């Protein structure tokens, strides 16, 4: 200890670019140093940690204590760099097995203030509940988001529903109705489209962002006014892979009050996920966005045939099954089989299908942009 401390101190003293690292796994400590300005990649760091602690076959979570004593995770290049650069004087690293991670510790003042009564009480409360393994944010995929908050009137809400796989139906119904508009001639009743019903357990209900009697104003940037119920239905279904609905919620009490007015016009951000959807001239959107915006879903599946010569059936094929045998060995069957082989376990099946499908894709552009969960099938029901 002493020796290494001296060494590190000398190092630190001599070349200020080195950062001393003290890493703890269970009861074991390891010490090494990193370059403060060129710490390298998180991946390499992770490998180094596993190597140093001789735990190459374990899945671990890496955390560190920041200047306030909070336990924060290191799981990407950014927070790794942050951890190294802010280390003062040394970087204390804590390693936990993936399955033993107590996520409730992260972000709280676990290290320095653990003993405080209030915290203890809360931890006790938590402990009484059954242990839920909550993964890190990057393990989640979004199911919905509110977008364009900065450019819409506060009374409106633009909701994006991400539909991944077939697990959940979109789950809502729309109907005709009348809404009241303020016009130069006073109040006017105009026909409108409303959400009429939510399917319990459906995607729309589970997001909590849409509700019965919300008026639908736009579908993927196209105004609904003047369109019939059937037209709007067709538009929503045609956009169902990436549905963006602008609604006027029936309940106006949960509106997001934004502070953009205070910050002035400069507060209008332009880099929100789909802000060009709301450009006032929607025709630009219509002419422009198809490729940029929607290529993420349009990955039609193309399967190349073997093109090996096949046996040709003879006449009087009414009873003969020769044709069926030929066609029975068709590509889809092969594909299905492959898919089944690739389906290892439930959680990973989606990913492997997508890998397979994207490897099948002939268009490199599409295979690059294909999102996780962007394909509607799961392994067993692909029918080609």
């Amino acid at each position, binding site marked *: 200890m002493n020796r290494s401390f001296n060494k590190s101190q000398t190092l630190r003293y001599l070349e200020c670019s080195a950062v001393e690292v003290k890493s703890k796994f269970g009861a074991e400590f390891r010490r090494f140093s990193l370059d403060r300005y060129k710490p390298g990649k998180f991946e390499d760091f992770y490998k180094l940690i596993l190597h140093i602690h001789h735990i190459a076959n374990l899945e671990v979570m890496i955390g560190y204590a920041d200047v306030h004593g909070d336990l924060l995770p290191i799981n990407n290049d950014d927070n790794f760099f942050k951890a190294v650069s802010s280390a003062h004087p040394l970087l204390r690293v804590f390693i936990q097995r993936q399955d033993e991670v107590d996520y409730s510790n992260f972000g709280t003042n676990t290290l320095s203030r653990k003993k405080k009564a209030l915290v203890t009480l809360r931890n006790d409360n938590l402990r009484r509940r059954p242990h839920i393994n909550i993964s890190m944010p990057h393990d989640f995929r979004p199911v919905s988001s509110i977008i364009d908050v900065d450019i819409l009137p506060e009374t409106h809400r633009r909701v994006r529903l991400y539909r991944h796989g077939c697990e959940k139906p979109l789950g809502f119904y729309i109907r005709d109705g009348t809404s009241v508009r303020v016009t130069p001639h006073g109040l006017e009743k105009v026909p409108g489209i409303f959400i009429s019903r939510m399917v319990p357990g459906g995607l729309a209900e589970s997001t909590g962002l849409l509700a019965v009697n919300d008026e639908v104003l736009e579908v993927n940037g196209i105004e609904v006014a003047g369109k019939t119920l059937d037209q709007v239905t067709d538009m929503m279904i045609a956009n169902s892979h990436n549905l963006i609905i602008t609604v006027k919620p029936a309940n106006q009490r949960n509106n997001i009050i934004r502070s953009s007015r205070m910050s002035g016009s400069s507060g209008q951000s332009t880099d929100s996920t789909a802000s060009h959807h709301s450009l006032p001239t929607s*025709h630009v959107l219509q002419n422009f966005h198809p490729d940029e915006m929607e290529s993420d879903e349009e990955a039609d599946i193309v399967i190349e045939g073997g093109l090996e010569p096949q046996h040709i059936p003879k006449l009087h094929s009414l009873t003969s099954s020769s044709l069926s045998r030929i*066609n029975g060995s068709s590509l889809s069957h092969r594909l299905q089989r492959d898919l089944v082989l690739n389906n290892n376990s439930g959680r990973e099946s989606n990913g492997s299908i997508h890998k397979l499908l994207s490897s099948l894709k002939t268009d490199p552009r599409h295979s690059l942009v294909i999102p996780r969960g962007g394909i509607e099938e799961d392994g067993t*029901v692909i029918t080609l």
Partner: protein
Amino acid sequence: MGTGTQICPQTEDVAEPFCKGASCCLLPGDTAEQLLAHWGSVTLECFGVAAPESAPWCKGGGLLCDSGFGGGSALTPLSPQTVEHGFPSQPSALAYDPWLRVMAIGTKAGAVKLYGAPGVELTGLHKETATVTQLHFLTGQGWLLSLLDDNSLHLWEIYQKEGCSHLEETRSFGLPARPGSGAAPLITRVTVILPMAPGTVACLGTEGGAVYFLALPSLVLLEDKTLLQDEILQSVPDDYRCGKALGPVECIQEHPQDAGRLLIGYSRGLVVLWDQSTRTVQHLFLGNQLESLAWEHSGKNIASSHSDGGYMVWAVGGSGQRTQQPITATVPYGPFPCKAISKILWRTCESGNPFIIFSGGMPRASYGDRHCVSVLQGQRLATLDFTSRTSCGTNPAVPGLGFPLPSSLFYFLFFIQQGFENPRALVVLVEEELVVIDLQTPGWPTIPAPYLAPLHSSAITCSYHISNVPLKLWERIVSAGEQQSPRLSSAAWPINGGKNLAQEPTQRGLLLTGHEDGTVRFWDASGVSLKPLYKLGTANIFQTDCEHNDSLNQAGEEEWPPFRKVGCFDPYSDDPRLGIQKIALCKYTAKMVVAGTAGQVLVMELNDDKSEHTVSVATVDLLQDREGFTWKGHDRLAPRNGPITFTPGFQPSVLVQCVPPAAVTAITLHSEWNLVAFGTSHGFGLFDYHRRNPVLARCTLHPNDSLAMEGPLSRVKSLKKSLRQSFRRIRKSRVSGKKRLNAGSPSSKEANAQLAEQAGPPEVEMTPVQRRIEPRSADDSLSGVVRCLYFADTFLRDATHHGPTMWAGTNSGSVFAYALEVPSQEKFSERAVEAVLGKEIQLMHRAPVVAIAVLDGRGNPLPEPYEVSRDLAKAPDMQGSHSMLISSEEQFKVFTLPKVSAKTKFKLTAHEGCRVRKVALVSLASTGTEERVENCLACLTNLGDIHIFTVPALRPQVHYSCIRKEDISGIASCVFTKHGQGFYLISPSEFERFSLSARNVTEPLCCLEVSRLQDTSCLRWVRPRAPHPPWKHPVVSILASSKGAQESPGCIWFISPRSSEEVERNMRNASEDEMRPAGILIK
């Protein structure tokens, strides 16, 4: 040059964002420079990304920019509809003008249609949608008087503009309620109209028995001439009074020699001869309940028909006479009780006995359900039976047959010649067809009509159009048709007035309609009138229960009355499985494929001679041993064994039957490869008809699909349907119940008000219709239906070798591509065709695939088989990379070939909320030069709009609203032609023709020579209305210098006012005109 002539028809389109580029260059009044600048900027702005790739293909930015250069766009402006073909739906009135030789037909929808010589057609539509109950020409003057069932009279004028005749309503008139006799409006209901000889006055007979006189064409009531019943009753002795009143006026006839005397018949049986000048009754006749009256030409006799089925002939003597006994009284179909004779006509004939023609009068018990017209000349009697075949006794429950033949639908044409009338032809308009009988040829045969063909003589199930038919094939089809129905009458078509000014059709177009009874009819669709050419029957190769040995035609000589079946309307199919679903015809080899409801696919060849041969039968199993499926629909049609005799025409050589026998949903034919592909709801097959050998069968069924096996008369479906219908009915009855509440009579209103009070607030919120938002899933029902099939010589395996391919698209967005090994022509008999699966494509949005087409390296569609080898089309570019256009119900996509990667796309549903129903690649030629042809994608949506896109860039160009979106059968029946025209059914019996091309427009342009006594053309300006847009008839300007019309003497032509002052002046004149009762203004 010519900029601004092609003006965007629907200015609201300008606001449509997606066609911004297109409409920009169409703004009226732009100069060429502005236009180009406009286009250029838009191109940069909107299509900046796409411009480089499409630049070589559409120089200058696209199709519509053409108008900037060549003085004419390739697209037609305004509403695309041009002309209606077929028989008007629900006709209700007929009139004939012997001077103009033009007839007019009114319909229940309020339309008025004029027909003269083939090609001469004028159409008008009343503003009110009410039934036209009567039509009367003011002979020779080009005015037409119509009576609607709302008791309003309307005057129509045939006027000339730019050398062409048009029909327009100029004014209307309603008979005022009789002063004093307040409440009952029935009193003044018009029952009879008689325009009197000089055409300046019309008599109106009414329900109340009064006769009114109306000045023409001003439609001003001549009050001092009105003849009320009281005046008649004064000069009628008591024993001639039929009760208190005489009843409604049933008939008014002018004395044939003396226009001052009118024969007025009242319903209760009294007939008076009224002298207008002295206002006295000259002669009285008293018969039975009266139906109709007719003068003999000399004016010495009259005939009256009665409700007891008899008619009487009376002698007309001097003044002051009373006659109670007719010369003769006969009940022609007695002695048992007969139905009324609703109309009688008497025409003298130079060569013998006069014609007496009447409708009705059939024995009530035995033939009371028949609609007959009897023609009697001396001892010769023919009973023309217009009743369609199945309705006579065997099937009385069929709806739609119970309509009596209205008396107005019965007209008679004649020629006045030296004191005799010498009738030439009898024209009978019945509900579903028009029949013309030649009265000058012995045997009284029918004259085939050159238009008004009853398209729906059996219900139309599909249609198919072929443009540019080679002359040889055309002549062979025409001759086959002539041999089929030899002309019995040598008489020319008698209704031949007017002059057809339309250009001779530049090419021959053939429209094929498939019918429910298994027939395919060939129509000449080159011009304005749709002429029948040939009829092909397919029922005779199958064993059906009902043999067409109708006892009607073979009725014995001794049968009384001597029925003769006339007309061809026979909408009842013996076997629904015979129905034709799909047609394909190769115009170069005269090979045809016809596919039907029971999975039958017939390969046919045109043979000019009679033939007797056996049709070879093959069966293709499309289920491919899929387990768990049993077909619950109809059986397949049993083919007849042994050789069958075929008349000259298309004769079947091979019959392929699909198993299960579901309706064929797609077919395609490649005559060069001798292949036919067909698909049903279960899968598709490929058949080599040269070797008579199946090549391929592929099942497309989804394992979970239960509905596909149900067949057309499914119990599951019908249960679902009936449930849905009953819900709708409940909803509807709620709505209509509410309506009735408002419209009820005063007493019931009170009762209802009380009820309503009890029931609570009257505004009961109805459960609204709601729609589920859920994307298609893989196991939706009927996902395996094959929607389209396509043959192409293209690159499927690699980019260096092209070869025959077959493509199939299904309801669930799957596309299958097969590489075909087709042996060369010489080796066709030795080697078999082979098919190898090349690619399977699954569209992620899973919408049904509507069409597939391959575009060559230049972006043009591939030519049809034989077109290149016969030098009829440019060879496709096989050097550049081909691309494939897939059109689904939701979007269009162009993929590269052989490597299938998306190139361009347009998501119609996502943007517009409409779905694709029909698509076609059309070539539109510019009006400027014919050489400038652009290929476009025309698309009809479920909202009835037609959109035009460029290919392969898929840029929206323009859209028109064409069909009402409620008209589902109209949208389903739409068929596009190669050159930008199209047809759709507007009623079961009528095709509407539309044109997207400004160059290829088929519309009636005609001229009628009107001799008008007075020019009252200014009448047309009485009602201010939007003037005709100058661009309405793009072709008009070319033909404006037509002769003939202007040269005829005695005609005063209306010239449409140029300036607004002139319009105003005319308006003022017209209003002054209204002040003066005579209303005559001579320019």
